């Protein structure tokens, strides 16, 4: 068999559309999972036992169910009881919920690592709880959480390929269409491998830069 990547030339635009959709789903789901992760991380440190219990149950539950099963439940299961959600929204919700479970772990670890004295200093200066959380706790927690959160995001990009199973034509979905039209799976999937690797590599570079910026006080001073 002769390998010939040029046969994919007519499909570059089509594959790029898929890649864009992957990026869109993941971007929205990233925001969703970080917000959800934050709320759950707060809930897990709540003084109310039932709030804590609920948060722990959510994390344990969604980390222990295959993503594909969650996805099928949302997309094929829920319509049975009259809840219809389109493929894109289903993808975002499913990725957010499963990503949120992992994100909450990363954020919680970051919060628990904060020196209590720093929070006490904020309390005695009279700062309201909301300000302490947004201006002190969260920024300091993110300094350590940003790397594990990056792993959650990268995992999410990889997992998003499964969304092709619910008719969402993201990168993998479009690649399957191209394969069935060209009968050249080798070429198509080689390209797919490279695109996913490049995508996640870019994300990890961005995370490293963000980590450096959040910890900018640790840099040697520029005089």
């Amino acid at each position: 068999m002769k390998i010939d990547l040029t046969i994919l030339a007519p499909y570059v635009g089509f594959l790029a559309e898929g890649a864009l959709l992957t990026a869109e789903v993941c971007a929205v789901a990233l925001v969703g999972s970080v917000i959800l992760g934050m709320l759950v991380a707060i809930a897990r440190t709540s003084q109310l036992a039932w709030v804590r219990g609920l948060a722990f149950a959510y994390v344990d539950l969604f980390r222990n169910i295959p993503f594909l099963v969650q996805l099928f439940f949302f997309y094929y299961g829920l319509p049975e009881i009259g809840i219809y959600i389109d493929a894109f929204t289903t993808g975002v919700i499913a990725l957010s919920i499963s990503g949120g479970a992992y994100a909450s772990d990363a954020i919680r670890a970051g919060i628990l690592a904060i020196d209590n004295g720093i929070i006490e200093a904020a309390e005695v200066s009279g700062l309201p709880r909301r300000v302490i959380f947004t201006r002190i706790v969260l920024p300091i927690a993110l300094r350590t959480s940003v790397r594990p959160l990056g792993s959650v995001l990268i995992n999410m990009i990889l997992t998003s390929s499964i969304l092709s199973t619910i008719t969402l034509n993201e990168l993998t979905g479009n690649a399957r269409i191209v394969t069935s039209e060209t009968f050249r799976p080798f070429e198509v999937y080689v390209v797919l491998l490279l695109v996913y690797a490049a995508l996640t590599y870019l994300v990890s570079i961005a995370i490293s830069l963000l980590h450096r910026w959040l910890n900018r006080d640790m840099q040697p001073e520029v005089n």
Partner: protein
Amino acid sequence: MLKVENVKKAFGDVIVLDGVNLTVSPGEVVSILGSSGSGKSTLIRCINGLEKLNDGRITVDDFDVSKPRDLAEARKRSGTVFQLFNLYPHMTALQNITLAPVEVLKRPKAEAEAEGRALLASVGLGDRADAYPSQLSGGQRQRVGICRALAMKPRYLLLDEVTSALDPEMTAEVLAILAKLATDGTTMLFVTHEIEFARQISDRIVFLEKGKLLVDLPAEQFFAPDGGLAQPRVAQFLSKMRKD
């Protein structure tokens, strides 16, 4: 007036404060001496509301720290400087100082920053406003800590062993600032092991022992043979501290 009335505090079975009474009037400098574990730091932590009282009452200008509704007002009136500085690591020296004035007192940012810079200059850190805590020495961090407390214009400054984590040289730079504050009439409640310094700047010295306030005397009398020294525990403590 800062009033501590019959305050009791226990951690589990361990009684840390056992009926403490203490009053600090505006303009006064009161030092608290006592060996480690005598309850000094816990007393400060009760005054700024970090620990709940088991019994008794603490009021800062009549605001009761045990009442959630009063606590915010009480905290506005007192500023705390900590042994381990507790600066916000992700903020510059100046941001550490301006956060509370802007967020709590609703001061305009530019005004708070101008005042913050003036405070930093007054402690010899005028050129370090944009440095992060990790880029400052211990003594410099504690000076920022003092500025952060002063920026709220507290009526009472609570100092909890603020030089215990510093080497002698850095201790000297921080004490010089406290001496200046004392001369300027800042009201201070000063937990310390720096006995000679306490003697110089204090109006009164109190001695805590196992959660009880054994002595409360004007500074000079505290060191007089018929004053504080008449108490065997105080004499023992002072001679031991001076030997070290």
